[in-house]
């Protein structure tokens, strides 16, 4: 029987050596960028807002990598370290980022970091059962809140204000700069809102049929559309079979020519429904599900919403 016994002390020595090597990485971070305001935003809409408002006075990074599911995100140890070194931590609210409280707790002793709940002061819609549904006699007792507030651009404007106020609080030197940028951006958002309102009148269909996760209620609400989704808010469970059937019935009833899918959920369900009904598939981006491809294309929130408008006009068959 041969067993090689590596002396324990060599092993311990190796461990200590390795830990030194790895800890050395941290100290080599002296960076001219450090002088800027360090902002970490959880998801894309906030990332983009912060970029636009902060301009070249801030360095914004997005906590969630592209193509990551925000609703079920798992914090990495590195994340907490990054955030605790930042000046601003932007998140929507506890409904969207359940895990945000962990960060706020861990970094509460850090005087430099200001966590910003950008959804503060914005009324959330509850996830309603789809109006046309006669199948549900009982309302689900736990009416979840829909956190996708940024898809109503009036909300987005309020979020811009909240972010601007936070930036000014920690960096009052540049408050004029921030205010100017914010005003410009809010105008763009208002223009977009108008454009949507105008171009979504006179459509053959007034229902958004969505084989993706429940996200567009705010948008539908704002422009007087009906919204129908097969999944729940976080798409963490299989859609109920009857919901699939209900969506199919809706499509057939309204003779809808197109249904919507989203990029980051497996499109199998959308494809299956499309095949069943002969409907076409159009993409809608909910603002936080960004693919790596889109990131490399340097999309912005506005550009994504413009793309959405094109999709909506086509799918709802607007003039």
């Amino acid at each position, binding site marked *: 029987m041969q067993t090689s016994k590596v002396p324990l002390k060599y092993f311990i020595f190796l461990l200590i050596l390795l830990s030194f090597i790895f800890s050395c990485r941290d100290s080599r971070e002296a960076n001219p960028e450090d002088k800027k305001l360090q902002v970490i935003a959880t998801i894309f809409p906030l990332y983009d807002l912060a970029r636009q408002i902060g301009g070249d006075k801030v360095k914004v990074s997005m906590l969630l990598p592209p*193509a990551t599911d925000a609703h079920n995100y798992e914090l990495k140890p590195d994340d907490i370290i990054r955030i605790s070194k930042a000046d601003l931590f932007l998140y929507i609210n506890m409904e969207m980022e359940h895990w945000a409280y962990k960060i706020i707790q861990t970094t509460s002793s850090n005087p430099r970091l200001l966590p910003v709940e950008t959804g503060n002061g914005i009324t959330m819609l509850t996830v309603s059962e789809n109006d046309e549904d006669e199948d549900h006699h009982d309302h689900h007792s736990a009416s979840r809140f829909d956190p996708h507030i940024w898809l109503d651009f009036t909300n987005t404007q309020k979020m811009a204000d909240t972010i601007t106020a936070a930036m000014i609080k920690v960096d009052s030197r540049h408050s004029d700069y921030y205010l100017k940028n914010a005003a410009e951006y809010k105008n763009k958002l208002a223009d977009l809102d108008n454009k949507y309102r105008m171009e979504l009148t006179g459509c053959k269909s007034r229902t958004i049929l969505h084989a993706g996760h429940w996200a567009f209620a705010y948008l539908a609400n704002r422009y007087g559309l009906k919204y129908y989704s097969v999944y729940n808010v976080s798409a963490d469970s*299989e859609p109920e*079979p*009857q919901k699939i*059937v209900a969506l199919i019935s809706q499509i057939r009833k309204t003779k809808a020519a197109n249904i919507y899918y989203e990029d980051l959920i497996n499109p199998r*369900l959308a494809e299956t*429904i499309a095949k*069943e009904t002969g409907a076409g598939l159009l993409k809608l981006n909910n603002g936080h599900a960004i693919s790596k491809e889109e990131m490399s294309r340097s999309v912005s929130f506005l550009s994504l919403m413009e793309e959405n408008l094109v999709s909506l006009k086509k799918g709802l068959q607007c003039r």
Partner: protein
Amino acid sequence: MSLIEVLSFTFVQRALLAGILIAAIAAILGIFLVLRRLSLIGDGLAHITFGSVAVVLLAGISPFYVTISALPLVMLASLAIFKLTSSKKIHGDAAIGILSSAGIAAGIVLASLSGGYNVDLFSYLFGNILTVNQTEIMLSLIIFAAVLCYVLFFYHDLFAVTFDEELARSMGIKTKKLNILLFLLTAIAAVLTMKIAGIMMVSAMLILPPLTALQLSISFRKTIIASVIFSTLSVIFGIIASFLLNLPAGGTIVILNILFLLIIFGVKKILPALR
């Protein structure tokens, strides 16, 4: 919603077809796996598939080819399980455990390296029988044919090996080749089932119908047939029930399997008492 209405949907028809094929594949292979104390191999292979898919996605392979690309890794892992089991130093269940944990851990680490849980990766864990497409039905048919040929052609040898491996060898049966083929077929079946019906279904369909059939204490040939019957019935009734009761299809199928097992078990206990 009526039964007729449910069955009128083409996606339900596809689900039934694919489901029956997968059920039959798993039921047949499962008999051999359960009798050789490899019950957890389905679960293990599913975990390894998770890791393999993570590797493949990290390598940047387009989602369309992911299944084909992940297959070799899973088949290799199944051979590794086979090798470990035959070496007699490690038992089958431990061998499965080792590779299974390696697979999941690799998947988690690689997913994190590639920037987070990719949706494609998740879809491998949670396939849905209701969204099966034409290509997957074709694949299921091919695998079904392969398994059927394997079992029919090698029936005598398979029975001997399952009964007593040493005895089989004394009869001149090439047990090593037979076993390797069994493991490879199981690996392919596992990947396919996982993609179509999700990770939970893989091990459930491989173990539960065979276990129920074994309760009947009948001949080997009839046991295999019974296993297939239980399996296909659970899929048919499971899918229908999931629509009528608005429950997830995969879970309903598995619960039905367990129900069958409990019923047969119960009947066996009560029957002698009635006499």
